[in-house]
């Protein structure tokens, strides 16, 4: 469930970057202050382990389908929330850089969805209290399943919120959520099952590794609350400034059929959108009059004047030719 750069608007991406950067520096401070120095190499190697283990496919009993490990919860159970969060950040960063999973702009979103939720929400609020100090095998299973499902539901919801408030997709909020949440229920169950099985093995073979099961401390809870409020605030702000997200939710709420949304309904929404949005289409254009004066500027939805489009297509072809030509020339120059 990696978010990708292409699905994220700079405002949403930037907001998530800011939130995750703040969280990462908090986690780093906690780790530098409290973590036993022997955990430094452990974090690194466990990160590599989770990364590699994500590539093994596991069959889900009774279904014939398969899934793989996400790892945030497992890391939290072994390292505690702060070190686990940093480890997830490093995994996501390497995936974004080397494997083009997600992307740099979407990295903040991914850190929130796959790091914050499992490490700082699901682990301290669900896993730790449910598993208890001396977890039995059954309690590990219950705790891991519950926490993993909750973590993935939150993560999936994060994806939906971020995508919709970025306004790149036309999927209405409710439809997208209805698509994402049930799929991630299944994925969450697999994640929980894999995590629980691995933890049960560790409990049997090396119980000393599972000693971090402390409940949520007050600072963690407080940080969580502040962050949740900040994230929610940022998201709703971007959502409200974004006409498309609004349009969808209104359309969904009023029960209009989207597939035939042409003609009067759409004109109505177009007008509504223009009235409601004070940051139209997030493209920082100066002001409406100027935008109309400079015809070369990408004009906002709904329509592009035909003349501009002929020019646009001709220009586009020339630009492409120029870009390729310049590239080839540079390549030639670099060889000599």
């Amino acid at each position, binding site marked *: 469930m990696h978010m990708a750069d292409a699905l994220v608007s700079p405002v949403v991406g930037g907001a998530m970057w800011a939130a995750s950067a703040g969280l990462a520096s908090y986690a780093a401070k906690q780790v530098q202050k409290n973590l036993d120095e022997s955990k430094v190499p452990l974090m*690194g190697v466990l990160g590599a382990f989770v990364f590699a283990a994500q590539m093994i496919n596991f069959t889900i009993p009774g279904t014939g389908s398969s899934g793989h490990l996400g790892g945030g919860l497992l890391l939290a159970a072994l390292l505690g929330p702060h070190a686990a969060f940093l480890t997830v950040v490093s995994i996501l960063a390497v995936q974004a850089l080397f494997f083009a999973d997600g992307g740099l702009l979407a990295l903040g979103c991914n850190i929130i969805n796959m790091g914050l939720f499992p490490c700082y929400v699901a682990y301290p609020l669900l896993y730790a209290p449910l598993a208890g100090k001396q977890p039995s095998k059954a309690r590990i299973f219950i705790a891991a399943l519950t926490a993993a499902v909750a973590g993935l539901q939150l993560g999936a919801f994060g994806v939906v919120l971020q995508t919709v408030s970025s306004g790149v997709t036309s999927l209405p909020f409710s439809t997208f959520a209805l698509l994402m949440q049930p799929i991630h229920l299944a994925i969450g169950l697999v994640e929980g099952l894999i995590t629980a099985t691995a933890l049960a093995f560790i409990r049997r073979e090396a119980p000393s590794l599972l000693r971090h099961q402390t409940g949520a401390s007050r600072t963690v809870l407080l940080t969580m609350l502040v962050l949740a409020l900040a994230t929610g605030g940022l998201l709703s702000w971007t959502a409200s400034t974004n006409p498309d997200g609004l349009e969808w939710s209104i359309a969904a709420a009023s029960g209009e059929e989207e597939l035939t949304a042409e003609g009067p309904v759409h004109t109505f929404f177009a007008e509504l959108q223009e009235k409601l949005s004070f940051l139209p289409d997030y493209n920082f254009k100066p002001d409406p009059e100027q935008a109309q004066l400079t015809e070369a500027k990408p004009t906002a939805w709904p329509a592009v004047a035909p003349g501009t489009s002929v020019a646009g297509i001709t220009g586009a072809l020339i630009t492409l030719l120029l870009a390729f030509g310049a590239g080839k020339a540079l390549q030639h120059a670099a060889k000599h």
Partner: protein
Amino acid sequence: MRNIVTAWLDLHYLDDLARQASFFHRLHPAGKLVITLAFAVTAASFDKYEIAGLLPLFFYPLAVMALGRLPSSRLLQRLLLVSPVVLLVGLFNPLLDRTPHDVAGLFTIAGGWLSFLSLTLKLTLTTTAALLLIATTKLPAIGAALRQLGLPRALVVQLLLLHRYLFVLLEEVGRIAQACELRSAPGKGLPYGAWGSLLGQLLLRTVSRAERIYQAMRCRGFDGEIRLLMLRPMQARDYWHLLAWCGFFLLCRFVNLPHAFGHFLLEVL
């Protein structure tokens, strides 16, 4: 789903590319990092229906490939493997967004198709940019740059250790997964009964490896702090380079170059 061997090969391949010594490779990593971010932000900030305006941005990846002596075919090939989920999400656009858009005054097209195409272009641009960064900059150098830009030491050390042991663990996990595959039904994943012990064994091995690394660190006076190599400061050419690219991105963002070209051409004719 990526396979472990491919991932390992990819890591090595990108590492090989990053080891070259072209003009672009020698630029300061912090500068390249900022350029890449600026590029991703620029591409993502375009309107959801924008197509023509995105095209001039292709000059950046093409120039880097040329200056960095990178094989464009291999890198573009990798793009095809990228995130089908994104395209899946995008594919709903043509279905749901039927706002008519005039194309060249010739025919009308649903806005959804435009936004889908725009999404695909953005995806291509941003993923290429990330790949190009890593194909021209070694990860340790990126780590040092992040440190220079003020990221917490614990995070940078974690990133570097993860990258270092990724090579080792991918090999190890790959061997085990292969051994399992040889003994399980073809085409299926690992049966449930085998999960626990396989993952658990791997985990235990990983933990004991971490213990040995810690011992090796202690033997050489480890006191909880890992001292990383410092980078040279940014030089004039690094700044010029950074300014030039950011200027180009801003130009692309605020002046629709293809439109301008088109108008110019139509007027001349």
